[in-house]
Structure formats: structure tokens, C-alpha cells
């Protein structure tokens, strides 16, 4: 992996250059929240953030998008994503989430709608410092080696710029005059010191995360699920803010003239009441407890069985945004606590 350094003084120019290559998005502050929005220049950007409400998945699996338009004569596929979208300021957890989505949408049968958007997405990562809700240390997603095109590590007056792909490389070639190829001993020292500082900042951890798959398996019938099911609002927020949740519904919508229409994909949530209803109205998950169990077992257990890694990247969005405090930490802690109580294996 090629590495450069970039003086922060030239950062506005770098942004100008990047912006000339496509539509540029980055984290901006909106009242109490951050969001990836289109930016005009570097002054719009606010890198001092922990998480946007909706992650980078909004560029890859938007809440609603047309996959087909039709009329009396026939149908036509719609593939959004002709334009290059460049997103700057993406944290390692979100980059990991893209790797998970890539695996789901591209590794087996390739989803053409996702593929198109993914092909035209450029990811410029940015280093971050954790807040109390960040769990990426426990999920092993605090560092990222691939999945980005460029990655900027903020070391005070300058950035370390990692190149992660051909797309990233061609950006650095274009920005040749803004980057320095020299990596001094000082910058290596700075980097190591920064990493150590960052590592020491993680407060919330999930010591049990490693064995979560087994714990879920053993605790499938635990009362803990009922307790969470009673509290859950079935509002879907957890799924919609989770950067790896991608489940969707498909609906055909007919226009008022009844002569044309479109097919639309809509982000869905397995916590909604009709998620598992089949034709004939049989419901395989008729209550909140069953649906919540699906959400967490799928993310924290079944993903591991299928892909060797959980579907959680430790971004802390569910921790931050669930209105009733049901999240990967409270659920795994409760399940772990259950094991401790019954089997006296824990301290």
C-alpha cells in the first residue's frame, strides 16, 4: 500500500481537485447530528464527528429507488449511479460495513443495481477518535486495510494518505503536487503515538463479543429475549441506522393515469410486524420477541456462520439511536449475564 503525506494547508486545494472528479459528499453538521451531504468546498466539512445517522449505505442501498419503469408497451430497467459519487470522511467502521454489503450483494449472485452504484463510488476514509458508544475495538473493525480508495489519517498539521485502490492511486497522481512521497521517521512516530492514544480512548467494550455466536445459540430460549421484546417499539430504527442492514421490500406503483408505473425497492426492517408473513397470512415471527431475536441472531451469530465475521461493525449507531436502549451492547450483555448467572462461569 502506497503512503503519502499531505500538509493540511493544501487540503482546500486537494478538495477542489477531488470535487472535479465527481459529486463530492462529506460529513457536515446539522443541529445535533451529522450527515453525509454534498459539499461545495473544504469549509463545509466537519471531520470532528463520531457517526452520521445514516452511514455510507445511503449511497449504495438508498431508502427508496426505482429498479424498473413500465408502461403499456413494455418495461425498462433503471440503473441509478451513472455519476461518480465521492464520499470523503468515511470512518473505518463504515468502510467495513461496505465490505460486508459488497460480500452480500456481489460475492454470490451479483445484484446489478448495487453493483452499478458501487462501481461509481469513491471512498476517501478519514481517521477518527471514539466516543463512549464506539465498539469497533471489540468488533475488530477499528482498523481498515482495504475497502477504501484513499484513507486520510489526521496527524495534527498534516495527513498520512494511504492509497487503497487504483481509483485512489489515480487521484494521488492527479494530486501529485499536493502530496509528498517521503515518510519521515517523525511521521511514523506521530502515527504510532496517535494510534496508542486512540486505542486507549475506547470506553465501551463487549468482552463477550468473541463468543457471542455461541452465547446466542445457548441462550436461544432465554427470558432475556422476552424482556427486550416487551420494551421494543418495533419502530425499525435499529435496522435503518445499521450500516450493514440491507433488507428490502419491492413494490410496484401504478401512476394515477393507470398507464405507467415503476417498481421500487424500499429499505425494510425485520422488526416490522409483517416482515415474515407468507402468502395465506401465516406469520413465522408473529411477535416482537421473535423478530428481535431474528435481528440479533442474524447479525451476531448467523453472519459468523456464513461469512466468518459478525454483521456488526461497532459503529455504535444502534447504541446511540434506539429510543429504548436495545442494542448490540445491551443485548449481548444481557445474554452474557444470563450465562454467567446460570453457569457460574464468569467473574
Amino acid at each position: 500500500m502506497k503512503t503519502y503525506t499531505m500538509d493540511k494547508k493544501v487540503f482546500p486545494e486537494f478538495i477542489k481537485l477531488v470535487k472535479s472528479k465527481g459529486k463530492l459528499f462529506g460529513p457536515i453538521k446539522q443541529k445535533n447530528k451529522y450527515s453525509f451531504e454534498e459539499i461545495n468546498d473544504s469549509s463545509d466539512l466537519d471531520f470532528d464527528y463520531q457517526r452520521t445517522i445514516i452511514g455510507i449505505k445511503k449511497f449504495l442501498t438508498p431508502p427508496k429507488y426505482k429498479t424498473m419503469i413500465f408502461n403499456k408497451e413494455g418495461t425498462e430497467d433503471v440503473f441509478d449511479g451513472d455519476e461518480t459519487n465521492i464520499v470523503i470522511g468515511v470512518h473505518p467502521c463504515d468502510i467495513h460495513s461496505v465490505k460486508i454489503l459488497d460480500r452480500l450483494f456481489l460475492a454470490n449472485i451479483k445484484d446489478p443495481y448495487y453493483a452499478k452504484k458501487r462501481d461509481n463510488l469513491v471512498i476517501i476514509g478519514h481517521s477518527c477518535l471514539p466516543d463512549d458508544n464506539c465498539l469497533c475495538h471489540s468488533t475488530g473493525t477499528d482498523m481498515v486495510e482495504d475497502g477504501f480508495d484513499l484513507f486520510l489519517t489526521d496527524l495534527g498539521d498534516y495527513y498520512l494518505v494511504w492509497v487503497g485502490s487504483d481509483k485512489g492511486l489515480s487521484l494521488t497522481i492527479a494530486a501529485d503536487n499536493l502530496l509528498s512521497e517521503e515518510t519521515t521517521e517523525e511521521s511514523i512516530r506521530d502515527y504510532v503515538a496517535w494510534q496508542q492514544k486512540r486505542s486507549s480512548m475506547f470506553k465501551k467494550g463487549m468482552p463477550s463479543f468473541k463468543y457471542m455466536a455461541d452465547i446466542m445459540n445457548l441462550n436461544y430460549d432465554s427470558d432475556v429475549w422476552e424482556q427486550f421484546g416487551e420494551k421494543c417499539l418495533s419502530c425499525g430504527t435499529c435496522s435503518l441506522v445499521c450500516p450493514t442492514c440491507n433488507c428490502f421490500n419491492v413494490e410496484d406503483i401504478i401512476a394515477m393515469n393507470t398507464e405507467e408505473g415503476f417498481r421500487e425497492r424500499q429499505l425494510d426492517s425485520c422488526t416490522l410486524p409483517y416482515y415474515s408473513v407468507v402468502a395465506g397470512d401465516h406469520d413465522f415471527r408473529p411477535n416482537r420477541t421473535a423478530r428481535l431475536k431474528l435481528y440479533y441472531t442474524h447479525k451476531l451469530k448467523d453472519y459468523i456462520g456464513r461469512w466468518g465475521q459478525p454483521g456488526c461493525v461497532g459503529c455504535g449507531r444502534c447504541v446511540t439511536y434506539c429510543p429504548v436502549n436495545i442494542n448490540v451492547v445491551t443485548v449481548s450483555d444481557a445474554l452474557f449475564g444470563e450465562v454467567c448467572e446460570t453457569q457460574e462461569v464468569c467473574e
Partner: protein
Amino acid sequence: MWKRDEKKPVIGIFGFSGCAGDQLAILHMEEHTVDFFTQADIKFFHMAQSHQEVPKVDVALVEGSINTQRQLKELKEIREMADVVVALGTCACYGGIQYLGEDEETFKERMKYVYGKNGEVPEFLDLVGQPKPAQPISDFIEVDIMIPGCPISAENFVPIYTKLISGLKPQKYPMPVCVECKYEGNDCFLLHGKFCLGPVTSAGCNAICPSLDVSCVGCFGSYEGANFPAMIDKLKEIGLTEEDAIRKLKMFGGNRVEEALKGD
């Protein structure tokens, strides 16, 4: 594409007690208005046409809640003559704000207070019929489809309506306002200790209020998956009394809230 029948379905739009805002909302769907009147045979539209007698309609869109005996009789006649009955708007679906006065006893007292003469409530003209507490139409007849809203939104109404006039059955997939709110990428009021009824309210409004930084008051009525006890706990957590929380829920929640809280 699905070939609908050449013959245009006969539509009746009926209004009972409410503000008639849903009928108005239909007339206000400007880009759709011409198609609305040409794609189906609108035989009866209380607000837009003079009265016509119709023996039978394919689809009846029924707005408002029922609060006189005469309305109840008319509602049953509509059910008899319609293949599909759609409850249009929150009043028809869940009872609306007027459902707050649903209690029979306090209703009698209020009637006396407003209309009473020497402690007696006078006879009402046959034109209106004997008043009764307001209830949603689903309390009296089988409702095939509910399109809540106060008033209904075009985005929510059109896809369901066009399926119906194309001879198709719309797919039911209830979700709360929170889903649309997160589609819009909004922050959550409840997390900042502020009141919001998004989690217990039917979606369909595109989370327009939260997107404009205004809390959801629940005007699209109760969401089918709503967890009212948990919502009350949450509202108490942010400082409401249980009584206030229930009152807020009941404002638009109608019979669903009543039903859910019965055991408490």
C-alpha cells in the same frame, strides 16, 4: 404491464363526521386531478359533485367517523352496495380526535351542556339523526383497506387507489413514522428528551413534521405494530405523567389505543 379492465370502475366518495379534509386533499392533488376524474367513473363525490343516486359502486372511499344513528344506517348501506370499502383518513380508520369523546356517559353530559334546555336534550331533526359518540367505521362494518392521514397524503393514497381501480388488491405492509423519518435521515426527538409519537404512528406522511423539526403528534393514527405500554414508559422517562402520555396517545390513536390499554 397489468392490463386493467377497459370498463372504468365506479367510485363513490362518502363523507361522515370530520373536517372533510380528505376529500379536499383528493381535490388538491393537482398533478393527479385530471387523471383522477378520467380514470374511474366517479359517481358520488360529496364535496365535488351534486348528489347522485347510485345503486352500486366498485370502490367506496369513506371519510369521517360515525356519530349519528342516521350516519350508521347510511354507512351500512354503503357496505351493502360496495365491493371494496376503503376507510379514508384517520377519523374513518381509528375515530380521529372526536373519538376522545367516545365515552357514553360523558357524552350524555356534554350533550346536555351544549344543547340542553331545562336539563333536557331536545329531539334532533331526522335530517341529522340521533347523535351518538363518534366511532371509526371499522367498529360497524368490515373495512377492506385503511388509508389513514390527517389529511391523507397523495404519496400514500395514489399507489393504493391506482391498484384498486386497476382491479388489484393493494399489499398491506404497516410501518411507523420512524421508518420514513430514518429514510429522511432525521435525528430522533425522543433521544433528546423531547416528545414524539413517531414509533406508534402509521407511516404515510413521509415524516414531514420531524423533517421540519416538529415532533410527530400521531395524526396518521395508530401503527399496527405499536407497543403502547413501552411508549408510555418512554414518554414517562422524558418527563410526562402517565395520564398525559395516555392523553397524547389518545388524541389521534382512537380505538386502537383504547383497545391496547384496556387491561391497564
